[in-house]
């Protein structure tokens, strides 16, 4: 399997962090992203996700360590890397004054897409993202979901084989978020490698082939979703729902050496009551995340919302 990204001991230290102490935003991380996969990069706020993306996309110089992106060395070939990657930053920051169509054309001009192909590609992208009707509308006048979609379209305009998506669905309404998830899945089906950060664990679970969890600048886990779940589930658990003669309902969780043993134990505990349901309980990605970071998804989203408001206010 070919690799899209290889990272060795990548580190970023900011000279002045909190309390004037140097801040190790990213601390000696190693990981590999395979070609064609959706690689999730999860972690609480300030864990080092965006700093890692900034280093891998050439916006920030690593303090130490090495990385190769699409076969090119980050230290010596950053321009070649930039030509071949698409980046969707957390903010939808295209140009307010330019129309949807002109924003795409400008993106293609910067990447050297031949003039003869630009208009057709822009029309295709607008159609693909459901923005054909908005072709001549200035970016400033698009809805938040449309701005996000156009920002992603602009990152794809030069047809990069690797795309970095930083919180692509944050702040979107349900329908817009769902459409964007469909678009990400479609890109994966087309063979585009995707490096995705998100605060939505369900989204990561649904989209990602493998997930790395970063906490305080260090990667604490890296595996497939099932692999991550397996690390925190020591024994199978079944949940049995029972109802007595007066229809009082009780739910119990029973652990066993294997699923069959657990089910038998659950039935033994029925004591003549009706068994309404038996379900095997598997840990969710959120369970894994909570175990590894000590932070619940709700807290993480609340932090995120608070930061968004602070940004909007400042």
């Amino acid at each position, binding site marked *: 399997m070919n690799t899209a990204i290889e990272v060795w001991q990548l580190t970023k230290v900011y000279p002045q962090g909190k309390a004037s102490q140097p801040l190790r935003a990213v601390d000696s991380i190693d990981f590999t992203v395979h070609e064609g996969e959706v690689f999730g990069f999860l972690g609480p706020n300030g864990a080092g996700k965006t700093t890692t993306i900034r280093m891998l996309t050439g916006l920030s110089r690593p303090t130490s360590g090495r990385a190769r992106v699409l076969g090119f060395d980050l230290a010596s070939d950053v321009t070649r890397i930039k030509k071949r990657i698409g980046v969707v930053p957390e903010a939808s*920051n295209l140009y307010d004054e330019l129309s949807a169509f002109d924003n795409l054309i400008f993106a293609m001009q*910067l990447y050297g897409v031949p003039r003869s192909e630009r208009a057709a590609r822009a029309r295709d992208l607008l159609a693909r993202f459901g923005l054909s009707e908005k072709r001549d509308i200035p970016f400033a006048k698009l809805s938040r979901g449309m701005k996000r979609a156009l920002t992603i379209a602009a990152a794809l305009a030069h047809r990069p084989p690797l795309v970095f998506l930083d919180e692509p669905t944050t702040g979107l309404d349900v329908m817009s978020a769902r459409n964007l998830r469909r678009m990400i899945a479609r890109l994966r089906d087309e063979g585009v490698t995707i490096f995705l950060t998100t605060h939505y664990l369900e989204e990561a679970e649904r989209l990602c082939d493998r997930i790395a969890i970063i906490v305080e600048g260090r990667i604490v886990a890296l595996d497939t979703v099932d692999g991550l779940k397996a690390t925190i589930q020591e024994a199978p658990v079944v949940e049995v729902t029972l109802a007595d003669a007066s229809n009082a309902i009780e739910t119990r969780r029973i652990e066993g050496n294997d699923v069959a043993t657990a089910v038998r134990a659950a039935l033994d505990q029925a004591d003549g009551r009706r068994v309404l349901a038996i379900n095997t309980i598997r840990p969710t990605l959120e369970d894994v995340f909570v175990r590894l970071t000590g932070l619940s998804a709700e807290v993480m989203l609340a932090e995120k919302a608070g930061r968004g408001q602070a940004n909007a206010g400042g």
Partner: protein
Amino acid sequence: MLADDLRGVFYIVLKDLRAYYFKPPNISWGLLFPFAFVLAFAIRNPGDVRDLVPGLLALTVLFGTSSMEAIVIVFERRIGSLERLLLAPVRLPALLAGKLLGGMVFGLTVTLAVLVIVLIVFGGDGIHWPLLILSLLLSAAAFSALGAFVSVVVKEVFEAQTLANFIRFPMMFLGGVFVPVASMPPALQIIARALPLTYSVEALRAALVDSSPANGVLDLVALAAFTVVLFALAVRVLAQRLD
């Protein structure tokens, strides 16, 4: 890589001119502001109007190049679109060169309009055209580099305007626009020698009034030096800020 940078510079200039510069309020501000100052001075001293032409052109270049450019750079930094440009295969000096050239093109366009009016009123006799063109180009480059430098050391748009005015307004009165530097007190002359506007006014005076290229060569060298130093400082500061 150089081809990527040159392409980036070209399209950044085009985009900035279209998105920001050539809007009616900017053009009217760029034209009216220097005329207002000169008119005020001319009413006070009606006989000296022709002598004010080099200063009028220098002021037009100064305000035309630096005003909008500083705002554009700070604005794009704040909303993240400046960084977005760096995601493309364009290196930071090329990005900033694009911003600088955008300011130059706008400033020189406005100045050209003022120059046409000057030629209609006073005629073109005795003008040393090569020196005039070089003086305008290098003045625009130096002032645009000044605008770029101002825009990278501040964080907010209003700070850029404040700092730019903090530099430009004293420069207007000390740079030989209204009063020749030679007739200033020695202490002020020392300050005037540290200001790019002084060299711009002197170079333009050599081209328009003296018609003597020899008098303007050192001024052109000084303007080129201001351009290089201010641009290098702007690149360095912006690189630190964006890292």
